[in-house]
């Protein structure tokens, strides 16, 4: 598979670069990596090299950024990435039991992906939803006030879509 943005994403890329003064296109790096991850699911070194080329910066400038920020996946992940918050406020609201429930339900450990490639479980640090805990991020959105029943529903919904 050759690495290339779809025409729509390429247009989006142009729009992003236009937000900065001439010569400051490196500023587009974070948004462009988001764009790449949206299309390819994760950031392979080929993808990062492609982004470096688009922005006329060196590949290392991309690698060091991609490895710094927690949202960039440097390895393939399941179609649905469950990122469960485990920091203090979520912890006191029962995050640990939700994490254990998901592990048992999907039969995977934290950091693993289900055999069908659908679900990956990850624990993350505070996502700013402390008042609506326990919670997790799945893709673009937050799933809040989690209970075992709600987790069941979410998983069933995603399974049905496939």
């Amino acid at each position, binding site marked *: 598979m050759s690495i290339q943005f779809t025409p729509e994403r390429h247009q989006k890329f142009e729009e992003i670069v236009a*937000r900065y003064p001439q010569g400051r296109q490196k500023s587009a790096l974070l948004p462009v990596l988001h764009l790449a991850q949206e299309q390819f699911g994760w950031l392979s070194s080929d993808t990062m090299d492609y982004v470096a080329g688009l922005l006329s910066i060196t590949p290392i400038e991309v690698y060091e950024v991609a490895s710094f920020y927690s949202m960039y996946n440097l390895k393939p992940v399941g179609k649905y990435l469950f990122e469960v918050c485990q920091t203090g*406020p979520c912890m006191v609201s029962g995050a640990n039991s939700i994490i254990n429930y998901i592990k048992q339900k999907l039969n995977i450990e934290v950091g693993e992906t289900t055999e069908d490639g659908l679900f990956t479980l990850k624990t993350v640090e505070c996502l700013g939803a402390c008042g609506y805990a326990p919670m997790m991020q799945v893709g*673009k959105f937050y799933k809040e006030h989690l209970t075992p029943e709600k987790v069941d529903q979410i998983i069933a919904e995603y399974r049905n879509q496939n």
Partner: protein
Amino acid sequence: MGRKLLLHNAHVEGIRTYEVYRKTGGYRSVEKALKTLTPDEVVEEVKTSGLRGRGGAGFPTGMKWSFIAKPEGVPRYLVVNADESEPGTFKDRYLMEYIPHALIEGIIVSSYALGANTSYIYIRGEYAWIPDILEHAIAEAKANGFLGKNILGTGFDLEIYVQRGAGAYICGEETALIESLEGKRGNPRIKPPFPAVKGLWDCPTVVNNVESIAAVVPIINDGGAEFAKIGVGRSTGTKLISACGNLNKPGVYEIDMTISVEEFIYSDEWCGGIKGGKQLKACIPGGSSVPILPANLLLKTAKGETRYMNYESLSDGGFATGTMMGSGGFIVLDEDQCVVEHTYTLARFYRHESCGQCSPCREGTGWMEKILYKIESGNGTLHDIDLLWDIQRKIEGNTICPLGDAAAWPVAAAIRHFRDEFEWHVNNPELCRTQNFGLAHYADEIHVPA
């Protein structure tokens, strides 16, 4: 019922749209500022208001603005810090999600005051759905002549762009944020030079929190003096508090800083008391970095006076017996919670978020996490508690940015006020895996640690 300046129209149907927002009086401050005030007059109003930065540090916003350098021919930037990542804090999210135009309106007036023609909203990457809301609001404002070229025919130009981060607490520190906005790792810069002189792309830059910028709207509408009348002492205006933990009604509240902590926790108008009728054990009132207090010292100061929800009262007693207003992330722990475990999760958080530039923070946060885990899981020794104390002391004040302090303070305060709970873990290695220490004396008459 306290006065509301930011969330007064939060429950108006359709307030997210330009049309409804405008009908409820939105964008009046832009008309007033651009047509009747000079930029310096806007800065003066903000100074008069006494507004203090709402991101956590509490630095006076007007003063910060007055530091901006104005070299000829060099662009200036306003960068809005929407990287809200301090555990317990989710107020800016609420504001942006429900009343996006309040932020856009504040940005226009603030940019005018600073002479900035481009503004970036740097929002944490995880709030992935909010940029769409903000960009829609920006497009609406532009379509109605409040953004773009020659706003309201005054000759003032402004463009606002939204930039998403990608998961890094450190980018809430203003120089790390600027680095990130330049497409780099979020490593804080050594100051000086301060961003007001050399910020984004080495140009003069002001970085302000979302809530601070939104507060500029009522300041301009009603005048800085009117804003300063609300609240008490140097805690002027209103403050958004995001309440979480073991509460009946967690959520985002706007308070006028004259109510007591007790009222805020127990009154039905606010948090409605502790969930399940349990007892209050401890609270971190200003986001995870500020010192945790046991119930007795939270509700009353060491002098036995009522503690209020404002900058001065929360910090009464210094770190020995007080805490901080911080970001307004109000984390409540009930009698069943374990302070050691809670502190461990915070230590893990700071280890995860340390950028790695400074050795005391990079190494120290990892050591603190490991030792806390050891104690929490029943394998600690009494010496470990002293070691923890020693490590946090060596991090504090020895790093480029305040993340080091932010990581040290929660550990220090937990040991300062809950040392017997740490010792109980050490002395009851089996029991502490299945049981918690409980409430002990933390809700008793005031107990001031030595």
